[in-house]
């Protein structure tokens, strides 16, 4: 399964939406989680539609629009979204209304917007796109499942697919996840820091003038032991007829916390340049969507951003990136991305 990336855009806690200043100014967050650095939406989305949108929808719609503009696609052949927690802000609003009004008269908008598939639905409504519309919500593999569906759509003959991943944080979500020791709630915690954002792509069946990178292969697997990682990576490289020396950069979802899986990967690929992406995106169920976006941008710009390089040196041509991520040691991902031949 292969798909060409002809457009992509992302909103993250850093400056990643404005391609002109991509990761140029580093945003220092003083909060215990990383809030998205959002653009002026009114310049991108019709204000009449904007008034009903919560943050996750705004982030997704803006990213989707920009990816489509880059790819010069007006109506995608499919809209596929992965989200771990969906529209949390509106869910909270709706639940609060149920309590405040003692299960009485409730606002329809908060209910309509509270469902996970609101993002894909909203994009389709705005585009008047009647094509395949699907939302995957499967914890740390929400984006990966969406990506696999997108690649299957291409394999079945669809010309181009809009696919993305998005998650938002609210203070309540952060507090709840912190209270079960899932994420860091203060700077002393040796736990991952929660982040939020959206990353969208236009994947095309064939390479075209806009294509700048390709997803060569991807695999998602669950609950491996640390010792299994080496075998999984070797197997993945083998099936793509590659050796570790053929990889120009390993991009990992390391989140700054001691982690046997990433240590094993680092040890296996110690001769390669290694970069990270969760210092930009923070941890979330769909952080890997940004990882894929960053890999695509690096391949396009032929640049490894200074703030991402962890070890090794990058020099020369950047032809292949191997992305490795896992969410809480449960949901693991390997994706091979390559530069498009000019």
């Amino acid at each position, binding site marked *: 399964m292969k798909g060409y990336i002809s457009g992509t855009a992302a909103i993250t806690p850093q400056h990643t939406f404005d391609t002109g200043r991509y990761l140029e100014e580093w945003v220092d967050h003083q909060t215990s989680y990383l809030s998205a650095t959002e653009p002026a939406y009114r310049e991108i989305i019709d*204000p009449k539609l904007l*008034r009903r949108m919560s943050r996750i929808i705004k982030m997704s719609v803006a990213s989707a629009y920009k990816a489509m503009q880059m790819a010069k696609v007006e109506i995608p052949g499919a809209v596929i979204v992965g989200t771990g927690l969906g529209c949390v802000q509106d869910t909270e609003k709706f639940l609060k209304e149920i309590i405040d009004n003692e299960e009485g008269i409730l606002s329809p*908008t908060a209910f*309509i917007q509270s469902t996970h598939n609101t993002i894909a639905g909203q994009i389709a409504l705005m585009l008047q796109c009647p094509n395949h519309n699907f939302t995957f919500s499967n914890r740390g593999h929400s984006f990966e499942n969406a990506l696999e569906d997108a690649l299957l759509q291409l394999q079945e003959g669809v010309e181009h697919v809009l696919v993305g991943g998005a998650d938002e944080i609210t203070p309540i979500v952060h507090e709840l996840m912190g209270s079960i020791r899932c994420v860091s709630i203060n700077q002393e915690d040796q736990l991952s820091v929660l982040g939020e954002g959206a990353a969208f792509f236009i994947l095309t069946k064939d390479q075209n003038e806009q294509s700048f990178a390709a997803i060569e292969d991807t695999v998602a697997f669950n609950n491996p032991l640390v010792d299994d990682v080496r075998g999984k990576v070797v197997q993945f490289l083998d099936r793509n007829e590659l050796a570790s020396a053929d990889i120009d950069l390993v991009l990992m979802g390391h989140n700054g916390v001691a982690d046997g899986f990433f240590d094993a990967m680092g040890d296996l690929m110690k001769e390669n340049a290694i970069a990270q992406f969760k210092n930009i995106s923070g941890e979330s169920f769909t952080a890997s969507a940004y990882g894929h976006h960053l890999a695509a941008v690096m391949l396009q710009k032929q640049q490894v951003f200074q703030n991402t390089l962890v070890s090794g040196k990058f020099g020369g041509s950047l032809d292949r990136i191997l992305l490795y991520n896992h969410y809480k040691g449960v949901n693991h991902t390997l994706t091979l991305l390559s530069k498009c031949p000019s």
Partner: protein
Amino acid sequence: MRNLQEKLKGEIIELLNLEDLQPEDIGNDEPLFGSGVGLDSIDALELIVLLEREYGVKIENPEEGREVFNSINTIAAFIEKNRK
């Protein structure tokens, strides 16, 4: 009645998140739907909830709703007539 109209304008702007509008921008007889303020069917549902929650008045008949929600004046008149 005049106070009710001004109150309604403020509530509608806040409820429907009409950030671009100030109460004085909405004329008392200006159509709320279509070419006027530009509200749509989901907004109509929100207005039904608003009237029931804040003023205790119910709109039972959809045809009646079409007339009631024509403008700020028609909503205010409906509230005055049906409020207990």
